[in-house]
């Protein structure tokens, strides 16, 4: 459990974080998204107290880190795994030694270290590179060693700062599966910083958007995707690029969960031909979510369209102009 309230961090005059309130419940994955420079990494660094907050309070597993003595702080930090944005590997240590380092320092027995290092290397697909030095690894390989090291102490809280950016889709999938497993099987509380909305959709329970040091929107992922017009929901389920409309009226449709997959055929009976111009329909966290831009006969009554689709479980909204759709899809 991570509880942040009123967190502010300033470098000189510039406030990099400004009154952050955020709670990540036990055994949940929270995603923090937001533009480059928003303060995401700073937030993570405040949580494990690598940066001292200027004001505000942070408790992790009920402990206020800032109030702890040196020794207590060290013990508390061992419970918080950190994956750094730029892997920060030790240049003079091999991949395996880098992963072993935190365990060595914690006094884990040598045999146990060997076992865990092997296990972690395998998990991140780096078994073949165990004895390579960072200079002999590719960017993504370094990143994966950093992930393994962050998990080495079997933390109960994990801070993952863009762990998967720069990883290929397969490796990303493997890491995300690993994180989900940690949450589900071991109840690890995870804060994921990411720019990849698929990552948020596929593993996060909670999502918060940071901008200029403030949280501008947050909520359960299930709730946020249902919101019809919040910037975060649009970012989470971006509308694929829409081709030209050739005379049809454009509508945005949105649904989540209990909707029959044959809704399109059914709607077609009432509304005539439906041109599917852009669509993203997928499974997310056990339910189906959809977001489409469709073209309908412009002569149809707006009310009727909304009602027919509402009966089927979809939220429908006419698109005011093509420009708007494009802008939205770029957001």
């Amino acid at each position, binding site marked *: 459990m991570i509880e942040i309230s009123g967190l502010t961090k300033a470098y000189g005059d510039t406030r990099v974080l400004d009154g952050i309130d955020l709670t990540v419940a036990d055994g949940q994955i929270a995603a923090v998204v937001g533009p480059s420079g928003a303060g995401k990494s700073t937030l993570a660094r405040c949580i494990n107290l690598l940066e001292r907050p200027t004001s505000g309070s942070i408790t992790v597993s009920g402990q206020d880190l800032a109030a702890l003595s040196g020794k207590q702080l060290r013990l508390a930090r*061992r419970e918080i795994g950190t994956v750094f944005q730029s892997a*920060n590997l*030790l240049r003079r240590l091999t991949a395996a030694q880098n992963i072993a*380092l935190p365990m060595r*320092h914690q006094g884990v027995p040598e045999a146990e270290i060997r076992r865990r290092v092997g296990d972690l290397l395998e998990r991140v697909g780096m078994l073949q590179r165990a004895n390579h030095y960072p200079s*002999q690894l590719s960017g993504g390989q370094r990143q994966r060693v950093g992930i393994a090291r962050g998990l080495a*102490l079997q933390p109960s809280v994990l801070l993952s700062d863009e762990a998967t950016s720069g990883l290929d889709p397969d490796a990303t999938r493997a890491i995300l599966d690993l994180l989900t497993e940690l949450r589900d099987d071991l109840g690890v509380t995870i804060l994921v910083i990411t720019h990849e909305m698929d990552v948020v959709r596929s593993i996060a329970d909670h999502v918060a958007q940071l901008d200029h040091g403030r949280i501008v929107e947050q909520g359960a992922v299930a709730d946020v995707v249902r919101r019809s017009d919040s910037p975060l929901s649009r970012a989470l389920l971006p509308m694929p690029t829409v081709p030209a409309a050739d005379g049809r009226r454009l509508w945005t449709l949105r649904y989540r969960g209990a909707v029959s997959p044959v809704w399109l055929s059914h709607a077609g009976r009432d509304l005539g031909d439906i041109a599917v111009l852009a669509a993203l329909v997928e499974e997310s966290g056990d339910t189906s979510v959809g977001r489409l831009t469709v073209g309908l006969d412009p002569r149809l009554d707006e009310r009727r369209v909304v009602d027919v689709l509402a009966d089927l479980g979809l939220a429908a909204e006419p698109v005011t102009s093509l420009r708007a759709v494009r802008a939205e899809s770029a957001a």
Partner: protein
Amino acid sequence: MISLLSTPWPDVDDLLLPALGETVRTVVLVMSIVVLLGGPLGLLIFNTSPLGLRPHRAVNVSISWIANLGRSLPFLVLMAAVIPVTKLVFGTTIGFKAALIPMSIAGVAFFARLTENAVREVPREVLDVGLASGSNRWQIVRGIQLREALPGLVAGLTLNVIAMIEYSAIAGAIGAGGIGYLAVNNGYRRFDDHVMIACIVVLIAMVQAIQFSGDRLVRALTH
């Protein structure tokens, strides 16, 4: 012009070999003290500085001041200044033992700065790795700072060993002997050209060998 009074070549060995032994003994002993004390002192100076793990102005200023003392005085003056200490510890102010203390003081102060400089090059981010995973300060210093700075430290050590060979030539003035002193005393002051040439050759070979091994080690440690 080769002096007529030079030691005959066959006899040069009799002077050279013991002197070489003395130099090795002195430098090895002094270097162990230098590493043991100078390393930690340098780490302390760096880590109490504003860039270090535990900035502490008062401690930093005072130990930095102390380390500077060891490098402030001409070595001969330093030797004189520490006579009371030497006398207390070894009961004598002359000979090999008497050279150990002033050489160690100068060497420790020098190596402290070299250590500080090497450790300063370790990027802050990798220290954060240790902090974030709850390592204690000593573990971070040993397992991360020293480890990452290893090539720089070895290069510093190489510099230091060679400086100590130089100092041992001055320490010869109080009877510590050694090859540098043999060069100064018999070669330079007594114009014994054979001894001079032999000493210079040995000194050059020794320094080359040390520097060469140091460089090799540094490269082997750099990944």
